[in-house]
């Protein structure tokens, strides 16, 4: 067994971890489609899906089977290549971001120095999915929805980056693992409360979740950019949205609530508990909040959140320098 060196064993363990994390991300995103409908039903005094399996728990399997066997229709008026590419980007860009999330001290795919920047890059790439889908569909509703969606996502991405810079400044690094260890004394939620608020808002807006689901406003645009999609391609947009929810929840837990740290329970339980809490919060937003008007959404982002994050960053910098021992 000369080939079984420690390097090979390490590599095999790392690869298995990567596969497990990927599958966990996809499965939790897919399961969320059932959990959300069930919870929404519960909060709105109705049942939600409860026919397939005990308490409707097999609804996901039924949906998946149905979607796989639906006609995979590419409209003749659409741009075939881009039309097929768009759902792949929508799902892949968000899934790739899971690489940077440190789940426990021993678990995680990549320990990138530029961790957070990688997430911003992938969130930027995700805009293309919406834009390509809307443009390639050659449908007026789809085009309008895509334009709205990309304008909104761009506006909220400007301050999504800035809202996390307070956290970065406090840890002094973009590395997610170091950001978690920097929160050993106090979770970032306390000193970075405004950063948390703005990141939460930006996260909801960037994943096009209600109440910022302007691009899908069904009353005006009857589903926006994925109006011409059906079957599994539509399903990929759908799962992509839920993967986005899981991703943003995991990021919030990692960046503002100390990631895996916590008393008594093992790290993985804490991470899952915190992430699960924010996923529930996302669903509660959808259940509780009405959709604001589009121009209000845009001006809220530019006129309120952007200045707030800039000032937050400046104050954070000043406080860090005041507390730091003079080096120069």
């Amino acid at each position, binding site marked *: 067994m000369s080939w079984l060196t*420690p390097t090979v064993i390490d590599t095999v363990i790392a690869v298995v971890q990567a596969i497990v994390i990927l599958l966990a991300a996809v499965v939790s995103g897919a399961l969320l489609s059932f959990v959300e409908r069930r919870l929404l039903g519960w909060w709105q005094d109705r049942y939600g899906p409860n026919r397939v399996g005990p308490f409707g728990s097999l609804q996901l399997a039924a949906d998946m089977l149905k979607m796989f066997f639906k006609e995979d229709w590419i*409209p003749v008026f659409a741009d075939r290549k881009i039309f097929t590419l768009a759902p792949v980007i929508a799902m892949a860009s968000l899934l790739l971001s899971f690489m940077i999330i440190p789940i426990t001290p021993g678990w995680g795919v990549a320990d990138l120095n530029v961790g957070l920047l990688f997430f911003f890059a992938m969130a930027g790439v995700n805009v293309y999915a919406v834009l390509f889908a809307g443009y390639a569909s050659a449908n007026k509703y789809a085009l309008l929805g895509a334009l709205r969606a990309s304008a909104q996502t761009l506006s909220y991405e400007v301050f999504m980056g800035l809202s996390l810079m307070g956290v970065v400044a406090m840890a002094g690094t973009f590395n997610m693992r170091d950001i978690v260890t920097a929160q050993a004394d106090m979770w970032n939620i306390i000193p970075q409360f405004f950063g948390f608020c703005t990141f939460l808002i930006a996260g909801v807006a960037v994943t096009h979740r209600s109440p910022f689901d302007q691009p899908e406003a069904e009353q005006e645009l009857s589903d926006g950019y994925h109006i011409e999609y059906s079957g599994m391609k539509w399903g990929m947009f759908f799962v992509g949205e839920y993967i986005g929810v899981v991703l943003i929840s995991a990021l919030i837990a990692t960046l503002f609530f100390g990631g895996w740290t916590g008393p008594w329970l093992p790290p993985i339980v804490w991470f899952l508990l915190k992430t699960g809490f924010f996923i529930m919060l996302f669903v509660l937003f959808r259940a509780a909040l009405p959709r604001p008007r589009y121009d209000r959404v845009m001006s809220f982002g530019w006129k309120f959140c952007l200045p707030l994050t800039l000032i937050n960053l400046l104050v954070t910098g000043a406080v860090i320098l005041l507390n730091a021992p003079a080096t120069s």
Partner: protein
Amino acid sequence: MEQIAQHWSVAIFVVAVFGLCAFMVGLASLLGGRAWGHQKNTPFESGIVPVGSAHQRFSVKFYMVAMLFVIFDVEALFLFAWAVTVRESGWTGFVEAFIFIVVLLAGLIYLSRVGALDWAPIKRAKEIKTSS
């Protein structure tokens, strides 16, 4: 050693993500049925026969948002660089960042005053308000 393991896990992760997406698209196109209909090949417009091409002109406001995004996001990048090195750059860096942020905020206030951030021109918004 740890580096090699990490490179492998990243590579496999990326390949697996794209493999999964390709699998979902490919399998669905193999399994799905095929049907034909008279009106199937027209774009959906809530049951109304579509007029003209879908690649039509759209509001100039969207270009405006794109330009503002480029301006502010590129300037945010400079602040990213400052944020990671707050301690190293010290008060000198802070004063520079302060001036930079003040200029940014002044630009934002200017844009807001000339109405670049309003979706509809102020005059028209007033008309809507008075008519309702």
